[in-house]
């Protein structure tokens, strides 16, 4: 006869406990009651759903198949109203009675709603469940004024999520310090600055006295009398354990339902895990200790009572991209015998504080640099004597052997706190399934699929354990707009963003910097094939005046000389310009062109007009030139007309922008006189064919180009060039030269997606290139039609007589 096990609560703690029970021999018939209508999902990730980084489906932990496969009755949307301990039954809201032999209470917690007048108004929400999240998403839209009450972990994550949706968000916090339970005043200040730099307003200390509005909320009134307009209010003022069910049944309960070290309540048939549970006077709200409770209870309930839950030192990490915050242990420095060790660098935004007692680590706060969190957690848990580490305690030496850190961890150490995956589980999975990528590891173990903060550790483990670990590259553009290039391209396309300002206002810190602004300019130009709102202020000076700035603030002018071929007329005009503007140096460049150095900004339009030649784009991340040899026209050895092909290639691609500068070469025979094999793109003439080579370099690094394809006709060579060129434009990161790009992706992948792609896919690449080309124009035409009246003109002061004005 099977025993009836009833679990009240279908959240992360309860279901994770059931998962642990299933791993052991047991004799249970399991029923899970959940008051939400959803299967078990990862509540920690709701902020990512809010921010649009994950869908609701992606955060499901146990889908409905899991319940069926394991023979678990899932009673979703059913709330348990009471427990009759004498009859050993639970009674649901509709009067349904379910018998139990063993009962697990995993009722979790609810959002605490402070008793403020007006919290019942429309558009006042909490942020606790998937339904709450969906409700917020329905209201959220660009420009909506949102007030988030509460500056803790959840409040800040909700604020960022809504801000990414384009809302104008203000965080209102009762205390003087954000996340005051995890941070001290200084750490809170650093956090505040970071949050503000993302474009979120922070008001503290600010006590909300009332929410006003006629039916629907219009704003907040503070105790100080000030008011804040708000179309939407999100309350994230903390959580309350749902202990009522247990309390009413007569179980011992204080803040939560009281359990001993084996997760047993005062009733021998009833157990409790999760946020509703109180252990040694403490309740827990973070996921790692809750999973630990589940493991302990699984042992207890399956007849292996012995493993004890001994509590956990609190550890918290903020899940906002670009804002690194870690806090663990005790941060109370007023305790007797506690020493603090501190480091801060305001410009870098880094703050570290360690609390020590008797040379052991008691607590840690890390802001801006959380690289060493595992070392500190390890020291804290193991009570390591830090005497030998004291001199380097703020910057523990990074292990020269990258595997050492993970090697030093015991198998029982939790790597992924969100999903309760331990080091031993990961190592076992890697061996058992031959995993060699992070993606594979994620799929198999769920490690690093949630908040992603253990990604680094998972990669270290993979690197240490797997002989053929393949790293994934995913770098964020910049802390102003901390997303990867892939994400940014999607956001720009998906949200139809047409200007740098829009991107920064919605996804960034509203300011941008010299790193991200030019990169975003490029992405917008590429995504919209030139049909975007160009913002000159977001571009480097070279791209504002179409010349290359020199060390003395003057500019260099290099006209286009296609294929390195010129005429006596052009040379005469160049000589005349050099005389007329007293050009300090005329130089033949390595690209078969002529450089006029030392031109004043104000002279640029006149110089261009006098030259009567188009821009050579020598100042920008764009198509530079095609270097050629004389080929069949004059050379005794030439087998292909490299000069003509080079000029044609240059005409096809000139005036376009690229992730980094793009240089080409065409040679008429394999002697390679114009060095085509060390260019971003080269055509190497052979008898009856062309080799198209890509990813060559002869700059900071030297690299021989890879062969993309060999083709028979010049026309085919042009098409292959177009395909690679556009593919590089669309897929390289900004400032990634073609040689790094080719190495990163591998030439085989590039071949498959360009020259060996389906005709339809090739045509799409070519169409987008053609659209860009149709809108591209010679930048030097702005000499005649400047984009602003002072683009080149030196401003002259209106008059030289100062006017005296009395100051107040």
């Amino acid at each position, binding site marked *: 006869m099977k025993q009836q096990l009833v679990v009240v609560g279908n959240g992360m703690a309860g279901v994770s406990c059931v998962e642990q029970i299933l791993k052991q021999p047991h004799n249970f018939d399991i029923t899970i009651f959940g008051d939400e209508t959803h299967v078990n999902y990862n509540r920690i990730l709701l902020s990512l759903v809010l921010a649009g980084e994950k869908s609701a489906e992606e955060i499901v932990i146990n889908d409905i198949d899991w319940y069926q496969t394991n023979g678990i009755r899932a009673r979703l949307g059913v709330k348990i109203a009471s427990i009759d301990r004498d009859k050993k039954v639970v009674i649901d809201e509709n009067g349904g009675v379910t018998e139990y032999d063993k009962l697990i209470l995993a009722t979790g917690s609810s959002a605490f709603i402070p008793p403020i007048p007006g919290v019942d108004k429309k558009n006042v929400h909490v942020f606790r469940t998937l339904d709450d999240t969906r409700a917020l998403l329905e209201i959220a839209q660009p420009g909506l004024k949102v007030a988030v009450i509460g500056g803790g972990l959840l409040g800040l994550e909700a604020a960022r999520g809504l801000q990414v949706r384009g809302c104008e968000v203000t965080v209102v916090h009762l205390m003087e310090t954000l996340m005051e339970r995890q941070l001290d005043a200084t750490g809170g200040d650093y956090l505040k600055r970071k949050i503000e730099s993302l474009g979120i307003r922070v008001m503290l200390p600010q006590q909300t006295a009332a929410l006003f509005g006629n039916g629907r909320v219009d704003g907040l009134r503070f105790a100080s009398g000030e008011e804040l307009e708000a179309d939407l209010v999100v309350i994230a003022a903390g959580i309350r354990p749902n202990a009522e069910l247990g309390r009413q049944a007569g179980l011992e309960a204080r803040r939560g339902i009281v359990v001993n070290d084996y997760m047993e309540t005062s009733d021998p048939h009833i157990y409790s895990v999760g946020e509703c549970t109180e252990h040694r006077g403490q309740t827990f709200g973070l996921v790692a200790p809750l999973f630990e409770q589940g493991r302990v209870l699984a042992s207890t309930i399956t007849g292996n009572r012995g493993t004890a839950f001994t509590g956990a030192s609190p550890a918290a990490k903020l899940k906002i991209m670009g804002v690194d915050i870690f806090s663990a242990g005790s941060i109370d420095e007023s305790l007797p015998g506690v020493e603090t060790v501190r480091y801060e*660098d*305001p*410009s870098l935004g880094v703050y570290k504080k360690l609390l020590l007692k008797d040379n052991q680590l008691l607590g840690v706060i890390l802001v801006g640099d959380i690289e060493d969190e595992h070392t500190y957690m390890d020291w804290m848990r193991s009570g390591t004597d830090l005497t030998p580490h004291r001199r380097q305690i703020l910057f523990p030496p990074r292990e020269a052997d990258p595997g050492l850190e993970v090697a030093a961890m015991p198998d029982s150490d939790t790597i992924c706190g969100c999903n309760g995956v331990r080091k031993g589980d990961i190592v076992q999975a890697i061996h058992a399934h031959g995993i060699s990528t992070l993606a594979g590891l994620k799929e198999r173990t769920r490690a690093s699929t949630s908040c992603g903060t253990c990604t680094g550790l998972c990669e270290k483990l993979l690197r240490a354990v797997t002989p053929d670990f393949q790293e994934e590259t995913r770098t964020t553009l910049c802390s*102003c707009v901390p997303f990867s290039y892939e994400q940014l391209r999607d956001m720009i396309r998906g949200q139809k963003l047409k200007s740098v300002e829009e991107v920064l206002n919605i996804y960034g810190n509203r*300011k*941008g*910097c*010299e790193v991200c*602004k*030019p990169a975003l300019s490029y992405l917008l130009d590429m995504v919209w094939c030139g049909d975007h709102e160009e*913002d*000159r*202020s*977001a*571009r*480097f*000076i070279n791209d*504002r005046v179409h010349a290359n*700035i020199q*060390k*003395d*603030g003057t500019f260099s002018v290099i006209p286009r000389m296609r294929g390195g071929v010129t005429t006596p007329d052009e040379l005469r005009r160049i000589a005349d310009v050099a005389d007329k503007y007293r050009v300090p140096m005329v130089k033949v460049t390595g690209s078969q062109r002529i450089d006029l150095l030392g031109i004043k900004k104000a002279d640029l339009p006149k110089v261009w007009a006098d030259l009567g030649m188009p821009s050579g784009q020598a100042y920008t991340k764009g198509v530079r030139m095609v270097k050629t040899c004389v080929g069949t026209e004059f050379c005794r050895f030439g087998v292909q007309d490299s000069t003509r092909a080079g000029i044609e290639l240059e005409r096809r691609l000139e005036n376009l922008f690229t992730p980094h500068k793009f240089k080409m070469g065409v040679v008429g025979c394999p002697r390679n006189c114009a060095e085509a094999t060390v260019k971003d793109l080269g055509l190497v003439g052979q008898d009856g064919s062309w080799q198209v080579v890509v990813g060559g370099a002869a700059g900071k690094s030297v690299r021989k180009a890879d062969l993309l394809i060999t083709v028979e006709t010049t026309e085919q060579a042009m098409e292959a060039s177009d395909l690679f060129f556009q593919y590089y434009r669309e897929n390289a990161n900004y400032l990634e030269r073609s040689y790094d790009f080719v190495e990163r992706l591998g030439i085989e992948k590039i071949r498959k997606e360009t020259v060996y792609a389906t005709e339809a896919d090739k045509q799409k690449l070519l169409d987008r290139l053609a659209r860009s080309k149709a809108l591209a124009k010679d930048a030097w035409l702005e000499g005649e039609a400047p984009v*602003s*009246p*002072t683009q080149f003109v*030196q*401003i*002259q*002061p*209106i*008059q*030289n007589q*100062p*006017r*005296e*004005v*009395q*100051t107040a």
Partner: protein
Amino acid sequence: MNDVREWTPITKVENIPSREGRAVTVGAAEIAIFHLENRYLTIENKCPHRGGPLCDGIVSGTTVVCPLHGRRFDLESGMAVRASEPSCVATFPTRVEDGIIFVDLGGACQVAEETAA
């Protein structure tokens, strides 16, 4: 402290595009005027590092980045932003009246000079 400011009229507001800077030579002084959302800020147009034209830099919030080597200065205080590169540029009080930008060229920021010493 100056009781009287000598406001020199410089140029029309529309001559300085949003989030860009422009250089103006007034007598012996070369200044760079920047246009930030509805206000104008003026600093000396010379990076103390290698003399770069700050007017040509990219604006980031209330800072400008020198186009030559990336030194960053706060337009309000004139101070270098990175503590590792201590230096500063002079700032000049700036106001707008009837669409004309006025700069007090005598009012070079004293804080900046003291810090530079």
